């Protein structure tokens, strides 16, 4: 089943056209990595998917329904589309547990005790139960990002968007976050991952997309993209990534 699609997606910032007609789709259980050089529009694409950036043209289609450009539809979409940011963005005024519960309690109005139970299970999954009552300020980047993943998962999203989830981390903390993500992929979580971690993209993705100057320039299996790149831009991009 197709979870999320875009048709002819365009996005401009002022005069600069950042996305120039993106046709994209992801099926349930699929893991799609998006690679490309800095400024190619990867984040913008991801942020258009959940309307953090407003598209200029084209359609965003969630489970075969075009998402209308009005507050109620956008909020409904966001309940089903999780997002994990490069800079974690945990709520500073809440403990780890409250962060993970926030969507359930505030958005879904679920009962506190149920939400707490679910949140604790997710914290267990990302290996952070002992931090449940701690505030984000005192934690490492790797821990913060794992909490952020748990927070996104709490809503039981149909797809999770990751925007360079390990780029803000010290090198020694990258592995713990990638391990959590690999686990998710194994469990069949539908994921769109913007990443500079080529090894991860290669190992975990079902499909890799190379975005260049706002266009999907090449798309294929990890083997096709990394071992048999056809496009010249992709080749020079891959050779610039030392991995």
């Amino acid at each position: 089943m197709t979870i999320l699609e875009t048709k002819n997606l365009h996005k401009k910032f002022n005069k600069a056209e950042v996305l120039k007609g993106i046709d994209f789709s992801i099926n349930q259980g699929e893991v799609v990595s998006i690679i490309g050089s800095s400024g190619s529009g990867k984040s913008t694409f991801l942020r258009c998917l959940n309307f953090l950036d407003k598209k200029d043209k084209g359609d965003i289609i969630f489970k075969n329904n075009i998402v209308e450009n009005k507050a109620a539809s956008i909020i409904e979409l966001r309940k089903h589309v999780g997002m994990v940011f490069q800079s974690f963005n945990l709520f500073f005024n809440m403990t780890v547990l409250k962060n993970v519960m926030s969507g359930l309690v505030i958005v879904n109005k679920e009962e506190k005790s149920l939400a707490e139970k679910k949140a604790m299970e997710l914290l267990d999954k990302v290996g952070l139960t002992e931090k449940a009552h701690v505030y984000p300020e005192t934690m490492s980047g790797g821990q913060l990002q794992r909490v952020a993943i748990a927070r996104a998962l709490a809503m039981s999203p149909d797809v999770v968007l990751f925007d360079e989830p390990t780029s803000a981390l010290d090198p020694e903390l990258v592995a713990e976050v990638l391990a959590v993500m690999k686990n998710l992929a194994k469990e069949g979580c539908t994921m769109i991952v913007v990443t500079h971690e080529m090894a991860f993209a290669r190992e975990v993705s079902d499909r890799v997309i190379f975005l260049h100057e706002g266009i999907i320039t090449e798309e294929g299996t990890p083997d096709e993209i990394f071992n048999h790149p056809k496009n010249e831009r992709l080749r020079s991009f891959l050779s610039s990534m030392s991995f």
Partner: protein
Amino acid sequence: MEFFENALHFLTSAIDNFPKFFPGIIATLQLSVLSIILGTVFGLIVNLLKMTKIKPLCMLADLYVAVVRGTPLLLQLFFMFYGLPQMGIYIDRFSSAVAGLAFHNGAYISEIFRGSIQAIPRGQHEAAKAIGMTKLQAFKNVIFPQAFKHAVPALGNQFLLAIKDSSLASVITITETMMLARQLAAATFSIFPVYFDAAVIYMVLTYALNVLLRKLEKRLKVNER
């Protein structure tokens, strides 16, 4: 020797007159507390209005802040006291004083909130939106709690000003501390001891508020390293 006698006379006079201030202290407290609470509510409402991004509401909020910041408090109080009745709005003296002071404080408090709301990183808004919160849910659960914490020192300062500004209510015939001081000074001719009492009262009130605020700041800091 004469100095000591004078000092003693000053002190006994100050002490003798002090109990006469009790009704004034109560009025000052009532004016201050009410105008601070109401002012905070006004400040909050101004920011909520602006959040709607609806043009007329934003303009109304901006106009309110501009008028208050652009005119003297004394004039605002006169307007409440003399102006409103002429417009056919009758409220009692005390209410008009509270309204005037709250109106005044609200504008400054709204600016304090605005500043501290703007200082919240964009990522906090985005994470709240991304998880499906409405603007109001995000404001209530994420943005305002953080903004409020940052605003406490500046709010405290405004609250101290509010206590002192309440003395201006004396000009619209509210019998608060300053009004009593003037009356007592005129009646007893012990001018300095009486004004000394008034000064002590304001000092004690503002100092007590300061202590409370420090405690609040400390408690709000629990989630920092």
